[in-house]
């Protein structure tokens, strides 16, 4: 027998690449193609970044009148602070605007609070319920606060509320549709299929358009619904169809054995779904679901089409004001950053959640 190596005999792997230079060589300049690419990229950055920085920071205006902006050459960020009230809160009465502000803080705060998976208990649902009621009261008023009807809800709160409630209601509806699509009952199944395919086949703007323009024609004379509510319903119906397809994928991934095990314990259909199948299926599809939710969030900007004053529309209105008409670049950049922050937060959270849920499996 050859002599065995004892454990205490430390042998290190041959170390070839260490340090900053090693990293650069390994990651940026390995091979001529990569080197070329690196150089090209650096050149491009060198061409674009300095003028951009000059425009956006060095020569920019931050809190001036539009006239001053027109004189100077740089970015006119002033459009944001000068119009921030309207962009954020739209028609909400000025003396009451602390209410939507508080609502948004509440919403974001609750979202942050629920980030931690350890807090996912029954009590969290109660907290949310209370939070939603509180938000409703803040926005709508009553009980001591002056009533502000939904027609005046606009700006960022509208965007956030439309997308938040869009997600909250579309999700269960989508789950039901997915279950329906997998149902053995032919009529239910085909209705769900038709619904999902129809809704997915048309652009959201046509649905919004229908909800705003034609919906009243469908109703008996004199019956009208709130415009915001109608848009909300359109968003929910639209998003639900997409969620349904995602959830269906998750359901298909659950092995038959799980159904059989549940059956043989004597659980009925409802309990099987609620206790066994859905918890697993929904967990599997977290990433695509979040993808859909992010899309839904971005798509709320389409309510512009039906003249609802979400944050994009309030910005556009500001731009219609002759005073500020020329500064759409700055305004849109601001919006882009706003959306990016929200969407990026969602997507990176979903990635984290996915990782967390995977451990311990």
């Amino acid at each position, binding site marked *: 027998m050859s002599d065995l190596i004892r454990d205490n005999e430390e042998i290190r792997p041959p170390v070839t690449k260490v340090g900053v230079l090693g990293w650069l060589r390994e990651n940026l300049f390995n091979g001529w193609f990569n080197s070329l690419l690196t150089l090209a990229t650096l050149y491009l950055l060198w061409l674009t970044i300095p003028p951009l920085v000059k425009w956006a920071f060095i020569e920019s205006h931050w809190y001036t009148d539009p006239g001053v902006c027109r004189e100077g050459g740089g970015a006119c960020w002033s459009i944001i602070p000068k119009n921030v009230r309207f962009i954020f809160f739209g028609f909400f009465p000025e003396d009451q605007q602390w209410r939507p502000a508080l609502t948004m803080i509440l919403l974001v705060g609750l979202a942050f609070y629920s980030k931690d998976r350890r807090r996912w208990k029954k009590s969290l649902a109660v907290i949310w319920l209370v939070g939603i009621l509180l938000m409703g009261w803040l926005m709508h008023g009553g009980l001591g606060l002056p009533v502000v009807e939904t027609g005046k809800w606009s700006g960022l709160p509208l965007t956030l509320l439309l997308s938040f409630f869009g997600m909250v209601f579309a999700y269960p509806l989508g789950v039901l549709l997915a279950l329906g699509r997998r149902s053995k*009952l032919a009529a239910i199944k085909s209705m769900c299929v038709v619904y999902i395919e129809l809704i997915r086949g048309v*652009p959201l703007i046509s649905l919004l358009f229908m909800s705003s323009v034609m919906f009243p024609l469908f109703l008996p004379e004199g019956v009208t619904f709130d415009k915001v509510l109608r848009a909300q319903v359109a968003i929910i119906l639209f998003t639900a169809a997409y969620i349904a397809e995602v959830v269906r994928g998750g359901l298909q991934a659950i092995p038959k054995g799980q159904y059989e095990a549940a059956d043989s314990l004597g659980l009925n259909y409802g309990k099987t779904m609620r206790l066994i199948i859905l918890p697993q299926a929904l967990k599997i599809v977290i990433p695509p679901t979040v993808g859909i939710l992010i899309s839904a969030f971005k798509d709320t900007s389409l309510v512009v089409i039906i003249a609802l004053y979400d944050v994009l529309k309030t910005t556009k209105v500001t731009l219609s004001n002759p005073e500020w008409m020329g500064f759409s670049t700055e305004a849109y950049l601001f919006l882009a950053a706003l959306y990016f922050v929200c969407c990026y937060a969602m997507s990176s959270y979903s990635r984290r959640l996915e990782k967390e849920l995977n451990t311990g499996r």
Partner: protein
Amino acid sequence: MATTEYRSKVPFWRDPVKRGHLFQAAVLLTALAIGYTLFVNTQANLQRQSIATGFGFLEREAGFEIAEPPIPYSAADTYGRALLVGALNTLKVSSVGIFFSLILGTIIGISRLSHNWLVSRLSVAFIEVMQNIPVLLQLFFWYAIFYEAFPSPRQALNPLPGLFLCNRGLIFAVPAAHPSHVWMLAAAGVGIVGWFLLVRWGHRVQDRTGRLLPVHRMGMALTVLLPLAVWLLAGAPTAMDVPVLRGFNFRGGLTVSPEFSALLIGLILYTSAFVAEIVRAGIQAVSKGQIEAAMSIGLKPGQVLRLVVLPQALRVIIPPVTSQMLNLTKNSSLAIAIGYADFVSVANTTINQTGQAIEGVALIMLVYLFFSLSTSLFMNWYNKKMALVER
């Protein structure tokens, strides 16, 4: 039969089959009732308001112009034709867009898996930025680049003779009409057929002798050389339809408008970010064992990708990519924001002028539904063709 006997004994609410029938009937009836009420209401409302309905307006004169119609169109044509122009424009931008976003998306998706740090970081950055900003804002951005960054027609950039770049778009010379063009086109067609035949011949040669021939290079040469030969035979006509600046604009040549380009670029970049993520996931879904098995029979890295990884990744990729293709088509309806005359834009003008919103919206939905359903039908067929055969 025994089973039928006990079936009758069981009360219907405890028999799953009967319960199912009952439930379905109830749901169907409810749906029908709702549909019927809506219909009756709409009828009554229309009657009451004495609003004109029907699609008669399609035959009336439209009276508005459309920029860059793909088929001849003028304000004297009917609404029907105007809408057709819009539909073709939608088709144009979405088919070109789908084609390029698939290519770009695949490249970026593969780059994201690259071992080069810079390449993979850049891909990630691209994907994050594109995915997380509403496409409408992106369209504004690209459009602004076009009209802000390029000069007016009088100062048009002229990088190559016959090619002009200005804020009216990219305008370039095309050969003046000549009878030989038809023949050149035919020759190119023959070349492509020849290419195709060459590939098949190459396969046969490989089957017979195992040799790999450079059939694609040969085919490409054929497709280029044949039309060239025809052109030379025809006396090498060199007359060009060169765009010239007359009055306000260039006349002659071919124009690619900034609106079309901005919409196309916006849609391609936005969609390709999603496609890239799908492609990456698809490639990662092919198990490592497959790659190892392929390597251990001695295939080269390129062959591993082409013969083993991609065919399997495609199955995972196709369904979500189909959704992205549909999304691109639907997102093209945002064209109205940057002045491209797609179907929604034309339909909007039509609704506006005729006031027939119901018909207009119905048409919009129908047209998109038609595009979507035909795309998904095709992709489902393709998907089925590619599906794995299993026990």
